C-alpha cells in the first residue's frame, strides 16, 4: 500500500494523464432551479464532481442577537456526502469543510448586495455528492447560480476554478491524480468576472513568484470560461421561464419571477 514512488510524467507531448491540454478544464454542466423547496438551487457536474447547491433567504436571522442592522449575513455551508470520497467520510463536519465554508462565504459576500437586507441571513448550502479534486470551486460556481436563481440581487456572478502545478507544469483544473503529484501546487481561485477582482484565493505547495504569475493568468482564463457557461445556464433558464410564462399566463409564475 506504499505510495507509488515511480516518476510520472504529468504532461507528455502536450497531453495530460487524462488527455487534456494544460489549459483545458474538465467538462462542466450546470442546471438551475432543480429543487422546489429552496428559494434557489443549482446542480453542477464538473468532471466527476457532482454538486447540489441551494439558497434560502434573505430570511430573518435567528437568534436575534446575531442580526446585523446594516446588512444580511452570508452563511455558506459546504459539506461532503459520506460516500463522495474514496474512504467513507465521517458525517460530522470536518475542519476542512468548516474552513472552506468560511472562505467561500466571504467570497460571495462581495457580490451580494447584502446592505439591502439588514437583519437577515442568506443561507447557501452546498452538498458534494461525488468528488475528484476541485469541489470547493465547483461548489462556489454552483452557489453563484443558485443565488441568481433565488433572485438575490448581485453585483456580478462569482466564477471559480482551480489552477496549479504538477510535474513541473502549470496546469488548469487539476484532477485528483495531479493533485497527488509530489510537487503538486493547488490554487483555488474565484473572481468577479466583470472586473477580474479576486474574491477567493488559497494556495498549497511550493511555488515561485514567476510560477504564480503564470498560474494566475491561466486561472483567470479558466474563470472566464466558467463564467460563459454560467451565463449560458442562466440564459437558458430565463428563456424557459419566459416561454412558460407565455404558455400559462395565469399559471404558476414563481419560477419565472425568480430569475428576472
Amino acid at each position, binding site marked *: 500500500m506504499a505510495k507509488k514512488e515511480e516518476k510520472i510524467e504529468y504532461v507528455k507531448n502536450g497531453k495530460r494523464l487524462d488527455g487534456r491540454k494544460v489549459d483545458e478544464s474538465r467538462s462542466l454542466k450546470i442546471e438551475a432551479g432543480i*429543487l422546489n423547496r*429552496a428559494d434557489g438551487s443549482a446542480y453542477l457536474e464538473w468532471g466527476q464532481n457532482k454538486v447540489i447547491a441551494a439558497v434560502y433567504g434573505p430570511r430573518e436571522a435567528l437568534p436575534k442577537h446575531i442580526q446585523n442592522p446594516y446588512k444580511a449575513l452570508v452563511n455558506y455551508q459546504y*459539506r461532503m456526502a*459520506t*460516500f*463522495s470520497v474514496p474512504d*467513507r467520510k465521517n458525517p460530522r463536519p470536518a475542519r476542512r469543510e468548516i474552513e472552506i465554508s468560511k472562505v467561500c462565504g466571504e467570497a460571495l459576500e462581495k457580490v451580494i448586495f447584502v446592505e439591502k437586507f439588514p437583519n437577515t441571513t442568506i443561507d447557501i448550502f452546498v*452538498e458534494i455528492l*461525488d468528488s475528484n479534486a476541485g469541489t470547493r470551486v465547483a461548489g462556489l460556481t454552483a452557489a453563484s447560480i443558485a443565488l441568481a436563481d433565488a433572485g438575490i440581487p448581485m453585483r456580478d456572478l462569482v466564477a471559480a476554478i482551480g489552477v496549479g502545478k504538477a510535474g513541473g507544469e502549470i496546469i488548469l483544473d487539476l484532477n485528483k491524480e495531479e493533485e497527488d503529484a509530489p510537487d503538486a501546487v493547488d490554487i483555488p481561485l474565484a473572481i468577479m468576472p466583470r472586473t477580474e477582482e479576486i474574491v477567493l484565493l488559497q494556495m498549497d505547495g511550493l511555488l515561485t513568484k514567476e510560477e504564480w504569475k503564470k498560474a494566475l493568468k491561466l486561472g483567470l482564463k479558466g474563470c472566464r470560461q466558467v463564467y460563459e457557461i454560467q451565463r449560458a445556464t442562466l440564459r437558458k433558464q430565463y428563456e424557459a421561464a419566459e416561454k412558460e410564462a407565455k404558455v400559462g399566463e395565469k399559471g404558476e409564475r414563481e419560477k419565472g419571477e425568480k430569475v428576472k
Partner: protein
Amino acid sequence: MDNVTWDLKADKAVKLIKEGKRVDDRALDQYRAIEIKKNISENAEGSALVKLGGTEVVVGVKMVLGEPYPDMPNEGTISVGAELLPLASPVFEFGPPRPESIELARVVDRAVRESKALDFKDLCIEEGEKVWIVFIDLYALNDDGNLFDACSIATLSSLLETRIPKLEDGEIIKDEYSGKLKLSRKPLLCTFSKIAGKIVVDPVLIEEKAHDARFSLATTEDNYMCAFQKGGSGSLTESEIDQCIDTAFKCAKQIRKQL
C-alpha cells in the same frame, strides 16, 4: 410559505380527503411517480438518486472494513444514517441528529435488516477479525413529503448495485471490485397518513402536516412484512392497519418493477 398559508393548505387537503380526493389529484391509494437515477457517485460502492413526486433523496453505500461484534464473530453488519439536509427544507438545520432523522434512519435500517435480504455471514472476511460494514447514508435533498419511502427505494436501488471492493492482503484495492452484494429479498417501505379518519398512501408534505397518524410498513416480494412503525399522535384501528397492509403489498409490487 408562512404559517397561515400552511394552515389554509392543510385545511384544503383535509377537506379534499374527506371527499375522497387529494391535493395532487391522486386516488387515496395511489403512489406518486418515481424516478430513479442509479450510480450517481463513482466514489460510492452503490448509490441512487430518487425522485418521488417532488421529494428528492440521494443514498450512497460505502463498504468499510471493520471488526465483528464479539458475540457475532462471523457476521458483518449494516449501519444506516440519515441527514435532513437544510437544503431540503426551510425547517431543517445542521447539527447533531434530531429524533426525526434518527427515526428515519432506523426504520429504513429495520426494513433491510429484518427482511434478512442481506446474509450478514456473507459479510464476514475473517472470523472474529475482519468483516464488511455496509454504511448506508441517506440524504434528503428536497422534502415534499414521505421521505421514508423515498429513502427506502433509494436504499434498495443502491444495495442492488453495490460492488464489493477487491481485497489484497486484507486491504482494499482502490477502484477494483470482486462482484456485487447479494440480496435475497427486495424489502420496501410503504407509508400512509391517516387524515380525517381516512388512509392515504405516499403522503405529500401538506398531507403529512395535516395527518393524525403515520404508519409505515415494509413488505417483501414473498409476502412477508418485516417492519412496522407507527408515528404521530393519532391512533389506528385494526381495520385501518389491514387496509395499509394490503395497499403496501400492492404498491411495493409496482415499485419493484422499476428497480
